[in-house]
Structures are given as C-alpha cells and as structure tokens.
C-alpha cells in the first residue's frame, strides 16, 4: 500500500508511541484502534475517551457576507445562530443530495467555523469558493485544517476531567455551545459537541499544541480511541456517516434528517427538499435491530414480504446493547417502527425489526 501521499495529523507520533494500528482513511494516516474497538467503545460509554479527529476539515468563514454565504449553502439557519453556539446541518446539491454534513460554529458576528468530513473537504472548499465568486464577495474562506488540530473528549467523565484542565469552563457549556478556553496553558476552542452519543467535547487548537493537550487529556483519565470505536459509537447513537448512510444520491428528507433543514429559507436544494417534505419519499433511512450473531454489513439486501425492499448502509455489533444493529434505506411502506424485515447475510436470512433511532441513549441525556 502506497502511503507516500497520505497526510499525518499533528498527533501521528503520539498514536505510534501508543501502539495504535494505523490505517489510511480519507487521505490521512489515522489510528483505527489502540487497545481494541470493544474496549475503547466501553471506555467512552463508562468513562472518557480521546479521539484525534484532526483529519476533519476546519474552514473559517468570515466577512460581511459570511452569514449569507452559509445560509445559502447549509440546510440549517446561519444568520439566526447565536454567537457561541453551533448547529448540525447538511450541504446539498441542486437535487437535494447530500454533498456533506457539518457542524458549524458562530465564533463572532461575522465569523464562523465550518467542520466538514475529511473526504469532502476539497469539494466543500471549492463549493464555498464558487459561491464567494458568484454571489457573496463579502465573505472569505480560510482552510485551517493543516495548521490546527481537533481532539474529541467524550464520555460521562469528560466534563469533570476537562473542567480540571480549563478552570471549570467546560461543564458550564450547554450542548452545542462553544467557548475559547485555556487547556493546559494552551488556547483551544471547546465545543460541547461530538459523534458518540455521549456527553462530550471537541477541542480545536493550533497543531503544535495538540500533543500537549492530548497528553493532558490522557492524564485526566481519557483512554485513546480510534476510528473503529468512533464508528461503533456513532452507529449506536443513530448518527449517519457521510459516504455510507448519506451521500450525494440521498437527501436529508430520505435520511430522516428533516429537523436539520430550515425549509422556509432559500438555499441550494431547498426546492426539492420542500417538495419531498410535503409529498414524502419513496425510501427512508431506518434503524434495524437484527437477530443472530452474524453482523449485518453495508451493502447487504433487506427483504420484506419476500421481496428486496432496501439495502444496509452501516452495520455493527452494538457492545452497549449486545445486539447487532444497522442503518438501511428501505421502501417507505417498510419504514414504520416494528416492521419485520429479513437481512440477507451472505445467503442466509436474519430476522430484523425496524427500530426508532437512536439505538442507544445515554442516561439522563438527550
């Protein structure tokens, strides 16, 4: 495997020193696992885990047209977002298909941070540049992915652990709020966001400060966690993964993400999404709990009443629930919770049932 063209995050050496299994992912050399996916999943559900998510794109959008540009490009409201808050949204094409999903933060009146998926960074950057050229000349976009690092600190003990490092300013943050803080004497933007279904934080700092912040978070009780456990955790939490559960060929309405679409504003793809929202769609993304020990995996066919009615887009064992779980697109008539289906697992049918998302909810959480 040619690894010459792969990028390394500021934490690469840290991962190697910790004995991580490193794999290529979206153009980066990333840690897949350290102690093991099941062990890391449990650490996040019961204590706290640390993830290097520096491969994700960090695009800073500023200027008098920053809010207008974002409002035109993302499905959720940007101008209406209060300072110091963040929102989940999607970026769609004209057909309503999902180019990427994102969490964007309002840092100041005319300043936003848009976090996008690693594999879509260049496309999102090109799209933003195009709209700056064509319509929003008062905005500028600065890709700081390579000069910064991003670390997720997730789990029930995350807030207390991080409080001890930043003078107590972590637990005061509401979900999807953010603030600029000092962590281990280094400046970091802390957002109460994540991709695990646990309470948790994401920290963005200068790349050169990342190893020190990582070490401090480990000292505060965090277990290093890789992309493998991140994938299990997000699936348990019913969170879609771009490139798998959501793609340019699927829309937010089909994916059941309509609550992140502000239909009464104008943005790219709005017309299609308004129509789909009113008229319904042929297929829907649903959660499935699947019987048996064999794991339902991406690409496996879903059957109902003896016919193919859909396809799995993500699947895994759920260590937190001790069941096998999956996300799948199924025909609308088979998308109601409680619907019995069968999953073709390499030629053997396994019984499944459509299940409301998320599969896993943290205690006392939302």
């Amino acid at each position: 495997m040619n690894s010459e063209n792969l990028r390394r995050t500021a934490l690469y050496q840290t991962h190697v020193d910790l004995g991580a299994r490193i794999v290529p992912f979206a153009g980066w050399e990333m840690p897949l696992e350290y102690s093991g996916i099941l062990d890391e999943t449990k650490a996040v559900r019961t204590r706290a885990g640390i993830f290097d998510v520096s491969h994700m794109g960090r695009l800073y959008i500023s200027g008098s047209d920053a809010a207008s540009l974002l409002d035109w490009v993302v499905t959720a409201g940007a101008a209406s977002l209060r300072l110091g808050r963040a929102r989940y949204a999607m970026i769609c094409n004209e057909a309503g298909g999902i180019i990427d999903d994102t969490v964007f933060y309002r840092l100041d009146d005319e300043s936003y941070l848009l976090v996008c998926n690693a594999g879509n960074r260049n496309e999102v950057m090109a799209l933003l540049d195009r709209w700056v050229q064509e319509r929003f000349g008062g905005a500028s976009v600065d890709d700081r992915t390579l000069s910064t690092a991003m670390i997720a600190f997730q789990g029930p003990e995350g807030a207390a652990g991080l409080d001890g490092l930043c003078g107590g300013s972590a637990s005061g943050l509401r979900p999807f709020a953010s603030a600029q803080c000092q962590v281990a004497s280094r400046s970091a933007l802390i957002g109460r966001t994540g991709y695990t279904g646990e309470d948790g934080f994401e920290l963005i700092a200068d790349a050169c400060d990342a190893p020190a912040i990582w070490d401090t978070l480990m000292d505060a009780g965090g277990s290093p966690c890789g992309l493998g456990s991140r994938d299990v955790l997000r699936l348990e939490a019913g969170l879609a993964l771009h490139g798998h559960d959501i793609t340019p060929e699927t829309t937010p309405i089909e994916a059941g993400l309509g609550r992140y679409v502000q239909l009464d504003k104008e943005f790219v793809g709005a017309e299609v999404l308004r129509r789909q929202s009113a008229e319904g769609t042929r297929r829907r993304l649903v959660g499935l709990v699947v019987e048996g020990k064999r794991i339902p995996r991406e690409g496996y066919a879903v059957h109902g009443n003896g016919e193919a009615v859909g396809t799995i887009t993500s699947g895994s064992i759920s260590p937190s629930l001790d069941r096998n779980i999956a996300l799948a697109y199924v025909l609308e008539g088979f998308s109601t919770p409680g619907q019995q289906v069968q999953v073709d697992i390499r030629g053997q049918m396994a019984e499944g049932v459509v299940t409301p998302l998320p599969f896993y909810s943290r205690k006392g959480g939302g």
Partner: protein
Amino acid sequence: MNPTDRKYSKDHEWVLMDGSSKGVVGITKFAQDHLGDVVYLDLPKVGTKLAQFDKLGEVESVKAVSDIFSPVSGEIVEVNESLSGSPELVNEDPFGQGWLVHIETSDPSELDSLLTAEQYEAFLSDLPS
C-alpha cells in the same frame, strides 16, 4: 513468536498434528491482530469433510468478516464449543485455547506443502504493510 511445533498456511491458519493423523487447526496471532476483536465464529459441524484450502468457516470481527480455510484435507471430528460463548479466546490465545477445530487428516503429505514457523515469518515480513 509463532510456535515451531506446527505448520502454517499463507491464509494465516495453523495446524498442529498430534503424532497420529489428527490435527488441531486455528488462526495465527498475525491473523487475529489484523481482525481485531473477534465477536463470532461460523464453524463447520462435526462430520464435515473438507479438501485442503476449502472454506472451513468464517471469523467475524467488529470491523469485518473473513473466510477461514482448512490447511489440510480431512473430516472435522471436534469443534471448539467454548468459542460460541467466548470468541475473544481467538484474540487472547490464538495458538492455544483459541483453537477452532480438530480434523482427521486424509492426506498427511499435504503438510509438506505448508510453511514452517520460520518460513511463515519470512512470508509475513514480505507482506506489504
């Protein structure tokens, strides 16, 4: 690190002969390392007859599912029942308690086509990382 008392296949299985025509089959430490956490094994029933390198079963880890191939021809005479409740034994002790099946071999000369521990390690070191 690979025991020298047994033979290896390029598919990362091992077979340990008991001195007669019966052998124990498992997967190597290298294989379980790459699979990660093993959560399920689909193994053949006692009495199943297999030719050398036939599919013996499937090992399912959190990340992926992989085929297991029989390093020798023969009939399955015992299956490791403890793996159904404790598949993690394959990770923890791949050369010992994590064994998969006992097989009554039908052609002992096949062992000559398999790798020694030393040859297997050389084979591993030539694999692209």
